[in-house]
């Protein structure tokens, strides 16, 4: 069964303290891995899509990497405005190629 596991469930950082979030996945043929950010009371906001092992993408203080079994979201010198829940999702190579399977997210709190 296709599955996504994110760790840690929650992470508290001081402003400027870099860290990484993990997304481990089991999928019958990965078509794409997605990272989203979700603020309280809002819908998920798209960050990145990664398609193949070794691929990396960056956006401001965020950098996403992909291996055959997991993805990391590296946060460099975070600021309080980076506080949010970060969601990972995979898309499998099935007939229903538009189905995203989500993890339960990592709640990130960055303190000034």
């Amino acid at each position, binding site marked *: 069964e296709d599955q996504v596991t994110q760790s840690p469930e929650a992470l508290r950082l001081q402003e400027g303290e870099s860290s990484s979030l993990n997304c481990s996945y089991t999928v019958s043929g990965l078509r794409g891995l997605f990272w989203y950010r979700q603020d309280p009371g809002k*819908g998920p906001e798209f960050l990145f899509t990664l398609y193949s092992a070794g691929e990396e993408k960056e956006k401001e203080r965020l950098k996403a990497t992909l291996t055959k079994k997991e993805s990391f979201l590296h946060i460099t010198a975070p600021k309080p405005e980076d506080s949010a829940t970060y969601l990972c999702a995979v898309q499998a190579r099935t007939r*229903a*190629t*538009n189905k995203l*399977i989500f993890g*339960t*997210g990592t709640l990130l709190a960055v303190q000034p």
Partner: protein
Amino acid sequence: DTAVSQTPKYLVTQMGNDKSIKCEQNLGHDTMYWYKQDSKKFLKIMFSYNNKELIINETVPNRFSPKSPDKAHLNLHINSLELGDSAVYFCASSQDLRGNYGYTFGSGTRLTVV
């Protein structure tokens, strides 16, 4: 503003009632979705439509009936509401079935069944 908009934002209703949630996107996307987020923040797909055609029906009780009058609208009607239906329901859209450029989510409808 270009966006995915859903109404209402909050919905409180009694068990056994029937309710609808509406969703509209003005992004010109072909594919629309309904996702359910439970109290543990787990997002799970319910339905997807592509150009008004049902693509995914993810073993959702048949009390839930989606309707897509055109490719810019996807509504969700729920009959005989149960306590376990309480959750946040998100509408989303993507450019096409593959979703290469990501999904755009609405801000959610928090449904509380009492």
